[in-house]
C-alpha cells in the first residue's frame, strides 16, 4: 500500500485533532457566575441542574444571597465594573436603575415579546428596550384563619373578586379577633414596611406613587390619597390595634399567621405552599386583596427577573442561559418549584389544571384586572429605601402628611442625579 501525500496530510490532521479533542472540549466548557435569590435549595437547584443537563458545555457557579443583603452586595459587585457576575437576579422595578447605569445587556434579540404578559414586558423594559428577562410575577391575596373566624362568630371573606372585602370591613372583623395584650392579632401585612405591599393603600384611593416620567415624588407620594390611605393603615397599629407593630422581618409574619396568632394576612401566592407544609394543622382560606369602600381595587404585582451583566466575557453562554430559562418547559418547572404568578402565557395553558383553586382564580383575575406595578424609575433603589423608613415612622404614630412630604422631597433630590 502506498501512502499518498494527501492521505498522509489527512491522517495527520485527523490524528492531531484526536489528540487535541479533550482540550477543545475543555476550551468550550464555560462557567457562568450566577447570583440568585436565597430561595431554598429544593426550589433552585433542580432548575439549575436541568439547565446544566441540557447544556453540558456550560457550568453554573451558582451563588444564592440572602434577601436582606442581596441588593447591597450586588451593588458593590456591579460597581467594580467587570464581568462578575455574568447573570444576576433583578427585582423587576430595579431594571431601569441597572440599565441606566450600564449594568444590563440588552435582550431584545433573545426575547419574543408575544410569549409574555404585556405587564411583564413593560416591567422588563427601559427606554423602549428589554433589559431583564421576566421570570415570574407576583400577586397578593388575603389569607385568613378559619378557626379564629369561627371562634369569634365572624363570617369569613368571600373568594369571589366581585364581592371582595373592604379595608373597613377588615378592620371591623379584625377588632373582634385581636387581643394585643395576649399577642393575638387581627391582621398583618406579610411585608409591613415594603412599598411593594403598601402602595396599593394609596393607589386604591386614586393616588399615583410617582410621576409618569419617573422623576418626581412630590405631590404624588405625599398627595391626599396616600396621606389618607397611610393614615388608615396607621390606625390599625395605633387605634384599633389589630396589627402587630414593629414586625418588619418578612420571615416572621407568616410564622405569626401560621402559629394561629393572627387572623388575617395579606401575602403572596408563594406563601401558600409554605403554610401548607410548615403548618399542617392550620385551617386557612384565601380571599381577594381588600380595597377601600370608596376606592377601586388595586393589587401589587411584579417580581423577579434576571439579567445579563453588560460586561460579561461569556456573551454566548449567557444568551443561551436566557433562551433556555425562558423556554416553556423550564418555566413550567420553575412554576412547579416555586409558584409565582407565571409571566409566560404558555404556563397558564400547560398547567391549566393547577389554576382551578380559589387561590389561582383570584390571582389570575387580579393580575389581569387590578394589578399595578411599582413605579418605573432609575432611582427605584433610593425610592424604596426612603418610603420604607417613612412607612415605619407612620406605623409608629408620626403624622403621615409631614412624613410623606419630607420623604417626597428627599426622593426628588436623590432621583435628580439620574436625569439627563
Amino acid at each position, binding site marked *: 500500500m502506498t501512502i499518498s501525500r494527501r492521505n498522509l496530510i489527512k491522517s495527520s490532521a485527523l490524528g492531531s485533532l484526536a489528540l487535541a479533542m479533550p482540550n477543545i472540549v475543555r476550551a468550550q466548557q464555560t462557567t457562568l457566575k450566577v447570583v440568585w435569590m*436565597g430561595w431554598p435549595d429544593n426550589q433552585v437547584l433542580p432548575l439549575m441542574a436541568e439547565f446544566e443537563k441540557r447544556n453540558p458545555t456550560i457550568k453554573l457557579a451558582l451563588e444564592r*444571597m440572602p434577601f436582606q*443583603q442581596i441588593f447591597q452586595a450586588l451593588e458593590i459587585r456591579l460597581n467594580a465594573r467587570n464581568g462578575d457576575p455574568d447573570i444576576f437576579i433583578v427585582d423587576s422595578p430595579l431594571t431601569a436603575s441597572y440599565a441606566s447605569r450600564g449594568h444590563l445587556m440588552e435582550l431584545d434579540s433573545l426575547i419574543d415579546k408575544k410569549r409574555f404578559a404585556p405587564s411583564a414586558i413593560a416591567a422588563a423594559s427601559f427606554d423602549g428596550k428589554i433589559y431583564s428577562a421576566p421570570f415570574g410575577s407576583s400577586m397578593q391575596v388575603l389569607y385568613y384563619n378559619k378557626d379564629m373566624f369561627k371562634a369569634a362568630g365572624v363570617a369569613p371573606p368571600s373568594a369571589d373578586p366581585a364581592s371582595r372585602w373592604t379595608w373597613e370591613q377588615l378592620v371591623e372583623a379584625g377588632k373582634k379577633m385581636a387581643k394585643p395584650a395576649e*399577642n393575638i392579632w387581627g391582621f398583618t401585612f406579610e411585608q409591613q414596611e415594603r412599598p411593594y405591599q403598601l402602595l396599593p393603600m394609596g393607589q386604591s384611593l386614586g393616588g399615583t406613587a410617582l410621576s409618569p416620567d419617573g422623576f418626581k415624588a412630590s405631590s404624588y407620594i405625599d398627595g391626599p390619597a396616600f396621606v389618607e390611605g397611610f393614615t388608615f393603615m396607621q390606625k390599625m397599629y395605633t387605634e384599633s390595634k389589630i396589627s402587630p407593630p414593629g414586625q418588619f422581618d418578612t420571615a416572621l409574619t*407568616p410564622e405569626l399567621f401560621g402559629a394561629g*396568632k393572627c387572623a388575617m394576612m395579606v401575602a403572596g401566592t408563594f406563601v401558600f405552599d409554605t403554610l401548607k407544609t410548615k403548618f399542617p394543622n392550620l385551617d386557612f382560606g384565601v380571599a381577594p386583596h381588600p380595597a377601600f369602600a370608596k376606592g377601586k381595587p388595586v393589587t401589587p404585582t411584579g417580581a423577579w427577573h434576571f439579567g445579563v451583566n453588560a460586561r460579561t466575557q461569556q456573551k454566548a453562554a449567557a444568551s443561551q442561559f436566557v433562551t433556555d430559562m425562558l423556554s416553556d418547559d423550564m418555566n413550567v418547572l420553575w412554576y412547579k418549584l416555586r409558584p409565582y404568578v407565571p409571566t409566560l402565557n404558555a404556563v397558564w395553558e400547560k398547567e391549566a389544571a393547577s389554576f382551578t383553586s380559589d387561590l389561582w382564580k383570584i390571582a389570575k383575575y387580579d393580575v389581569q384586572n387590578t394589578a399595578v406595578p411599582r413605579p418605573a424609575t432609575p432611582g427605584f433603589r433610593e425610592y424604596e429605601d426612603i418610603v420604607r423608613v417613612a412607612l415605619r415612622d407612620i406605623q409608629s404614630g408620626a403624622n403621615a402628611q409631614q412624613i410623606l412630604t419630607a420623604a417626597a422631597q428627599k426622593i426628588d433630590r436623590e432621583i435628580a442625579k439620574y436625569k439627563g
Partner: protein
Amino acid sequence: MSPRLSETLRYILLVSIAVILLTPIYWLIMSSLRPADHIFRFSGNFSIETLIPFAFTLDNYSQALQSNVGRALLNSLFVSLTTVICGVFVNSLAGFAFAVFDFRFKKLLFVLILLSFMMPFESIVIPLYTLMRTIGWTDTYAALIMPEVAGGLIIFLFYQFFRGIPREIYEAARMDGANWWQIYYKMTMPLSGPTIATASLMIFIHQWDAFFWPLVATSSERLAVIQVAIARNMTMEQANWGAFFASASLAVLVAMVPFFWLQRHYVKIVITNADR
C-alpha cells in the same frame, strides 16, 4: 445597712442582670431543640413552656449539619485563627515601631492609623472590592483574611502597652548588644501576654462575626463562612427557624471557647489599663 443585707442585695442585682443578659441566648439554644411548629408557639405569653421545650428534637442540628454549616464552621475557624496569628505579628510590630522609634511623619502616620479604625467599613467597601478584584483575590481565603490583618485599634493597643515599658530597659538591652528584633521578640513580646490575649480575642470575634464582607468578596459555596451559612437559612418568606437557631447556637458555642480560655488575661489588661 448591715454588710450581710448589702451583700444579699448586691447578689440579687447581679443575678437579675445576668438573667436579663442570658435569657435571649438561653431562648436561642432552647429553640434550636424544639420542633418547627413549637418554636414561636409559646413566645407571646411568658410561661413555663417558653423556657422549657416539652417537645424535644435534634432534627434542627442534623438539618443544619447536612447543609453547609460544618464546612462553614471550619472555614470561619481557619479564617479567624489565621487572621489572629498574622494580625498579632503585624500589629505588634507596628505598635512597637511607633512606641520605640522616632521617625519622620510619625505623628501624621499615627493619626492616619487612628482614623483608619474610625472609618465606617461601608465607605471603603467598593474600593476594597475593586482592589481585591485587581489583584485577583476575590473568591479566595486571602480576600477574607488579608484586609483584616492590619487594624488601627490593635496597633493602638500594642502601642499603648509598649509605651508603658521604660525606655531605659531598651537602652540597656542595646548596650548589652541586643538588636531591635531580639528586643522585640525576646523582651517585649513575652511581657505582653495580656495584650496579645486581648488583641487575639478582638480579632477573633471580629472575624467570627464577619458577614457582609465575606458575602461580597467570596461567591463559592466552599468558602462560605459561618455567618453567611446562617443567613442562607433565611429566605424571603420561608425562614428555616429551626436550622437557623441550631447553626446560630453552634456559632455562639464555638466562639465562646477562645473567650473562656483567654478571659483571665482579657480581664487583667482591662484592670491594668484602668490603673494607669
